């Protein structure tokens, strides 16, 4: 429940439907966007790269959030679809010679349709069965990345030339950062608004009880497939950004491990909210950077543990964080954030 601060009144339905209902919220958003977009002026390359990766992952996890958090269809295959988007955008751009923006759009839409194919079982099965079909999709797609050597370069991967829009090439890390941030902002905005349409409300109805939604006149199968399409469209955009940010794609970047990590990010951030994926991705990404920073120090102090230790450490840290969140705060960071906000808004009176 999102309370309004004392003294803020709503006297029209239109005002109630606004995304940002009070001035402090709008100002905070503006300040946040200004900081985000002027960051290249005064920050280091390392910080920019971390934030850009967060942005790329936010797009993918936002899509997963629409599918799993809003529409209730569990997917353990998002990373593979990110990979499909990455490969397709590069193939469309260079093999077929399309300009950058249409190539990315077409790649994302095709990723959506490929996701639709693997979402077809959702019409007949749900729960564990659906989770396993998406897991199957993940493994089959990664296998295809490795075996369609002519298109994907197999185990060697593909080197990606910088993106260019109207002759401007995104070569420098600042320009790539800005490109990713603009796209991330657009996609988050799209996701937020999608949830205010009939489609978004239909997703929530299906999540809460798909049979009841069907009885109420919401075409269950149609909306489940739409959810799959949208989620994989987001994955495709994220993949395209990935390809043009990292400038190298390889099947190793889109493994089952990553898919599960995306689900973990979604859970930690909080399912069923737009802020959730942003919190979750930031939290886990920063945690990952900390383990990357800490692992060499530990292995210097205890050299007998060996080089495998880092892999084990990051796996164990992620696993423990996910388990702790699931047990103690299954609604994620977003829920904590809402509680905190409400506490400040209602400050003198704890209703």
């Amino acid at each position, binding site marked *: 429940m999102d309370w309004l601060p004392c003294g803020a009144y709503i006297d029209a339905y239109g005002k109630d439907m606004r995304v940002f209902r009070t001035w402090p919220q709008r100002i905070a958003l503006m300040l946040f966007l200004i900081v985000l977009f002027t960051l290249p002026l005064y920050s280091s390359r390392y910080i920019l790269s971390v934030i850009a990766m967060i942005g790329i992952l936010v797009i993918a996890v936002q899509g997963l959030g629409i599918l799993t958090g809003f529409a209730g269809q569990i997917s353990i295959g998002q990373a593979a679809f990110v990979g499909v988007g990455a490969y397709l955008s590069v193939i469309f751009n260079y093999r077929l010679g399309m300009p950058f923006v249409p190539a990315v759009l077409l790649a994302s839409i095709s990723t959506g349709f490929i996701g639709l194919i693997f979402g077809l079982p959702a019409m007949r*099965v749900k729960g*564990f069965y659906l989770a396993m079909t998406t897991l199957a999709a993940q493994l089959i797609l990664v*296998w295809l990345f490795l075996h369609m050597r002519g298109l994907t370069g197999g185990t060697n991967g593909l080197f990606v030339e910088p993106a260019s829009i109207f002759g401007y090439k995104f070569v420098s890390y600042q320009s790539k950062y800005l490109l990713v941030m603009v796209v991330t902002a657009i996609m988050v905005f799209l996701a937020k608004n999608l949830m205010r349409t009939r489609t978004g409300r239909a997703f929530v109805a299906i999540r809460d009880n798909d049979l009841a939604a069907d009885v109420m006149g919401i075409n269950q199968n149609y909306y489940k497939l739409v959810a799959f399409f949208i989620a994989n469209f987001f994955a495709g955009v994220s993949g395209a950004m990935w390809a043009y940010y990292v400038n190298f794609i390889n099947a190793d970047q889109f493994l089952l491990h990553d898919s599960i990590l995306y689900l973990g990010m979604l*859970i930690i951030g909080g399912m069923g909210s737009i802020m959730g994926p942003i919190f979750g991705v930031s939290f886990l990404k920063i945690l990952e950077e900390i383990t990357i920073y800490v692992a060499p120090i530990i292995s210097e102090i205890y050299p007998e543990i060996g080089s495998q230790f880092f892999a*084990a450490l990051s796996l*164990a840290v992620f696993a423990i964080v996910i388990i702790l969140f699931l047990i103690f705060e299954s609604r994620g960071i977003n829920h904590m954030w809402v509680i905190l906000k409400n506490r400040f808004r209602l400050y003198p009176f704890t209703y």
Partner: protein
Amino acid sequence: MLDFLNAIVGGILLGGIYSLVALGIVIIYKSSKILSFTQGGFLVMGAITGWAMLGPFGLHPFIGITLALAICTFFGYIVNRLALRPIIGEPLMTSILITIALSWLFDSLSIIAIGGKQRAFPIQISNSQLNIAGINLSVTMLLCFLIAFALFIFFILFYRYHRVGLAMRGTAEDHEVMQNLGIRVKNMLDYSWMIAALCGGVSGILLASIISVNINLSSIGLTALVVVLVAGLESIPGVLIVGPMIGILENLAVYLDPYVGGGSREVIPFIILLIILLIKPYGLFGLKRIERI
């Protein structure tokens, strides 16, 4: 032709191990309606503790293996107690993710224990190959299959006739009703996780003695999940049939390799899963649940 027969027999024996791993998953599902992704982790734990007891610690095989299985069972208890009990009644998503996270924990434990290396299992049950009419049979694999088969018969009877088995099935149906009937639901869940971990440990030790001890053994947990879902989640006889079926198809996938460029056996179980779920959504031997609002 002989190759073909060899592939089929080898597939059946391999499938026996899949069935054994899958059995643990079905046991957990039957009592708690949780699909466990942790089974691969128990398998690796069994393999590693077995290796540690016999290799570095140098215990007598009988004592060592008993001890390893006891440790596995204890792991099952701990896992259920610390991670699964707090999430009783939470949505499906939670249980899926928590079991996956647990399997990550087991993976990281096994990386710390043995690193990326392969370790030969200290004792071989038998190196010999039976040769019947040109078909090679590994004695160890045959033994695995027989152990799996014996366990299956035991569990089918256990769930049909024994008091605890019946109570476990009831627990899966409805926790509150079982509580009111005087059954300790928490104990039932403990038992099922312990049995599952034991099954995982047994299959881990058997598998390690065939292949070797390495951290990639846990990926068999995924194939076992395919077996469980194709069989229809709660059917023990189904698992016994589907395990060898998947094993055979995996072995026959070698014949596809020239057309797709190799490695088709890695994905064939998942392709089968997709096809089966599109045709028969509740698996081959599953119960179709009728939903009400």
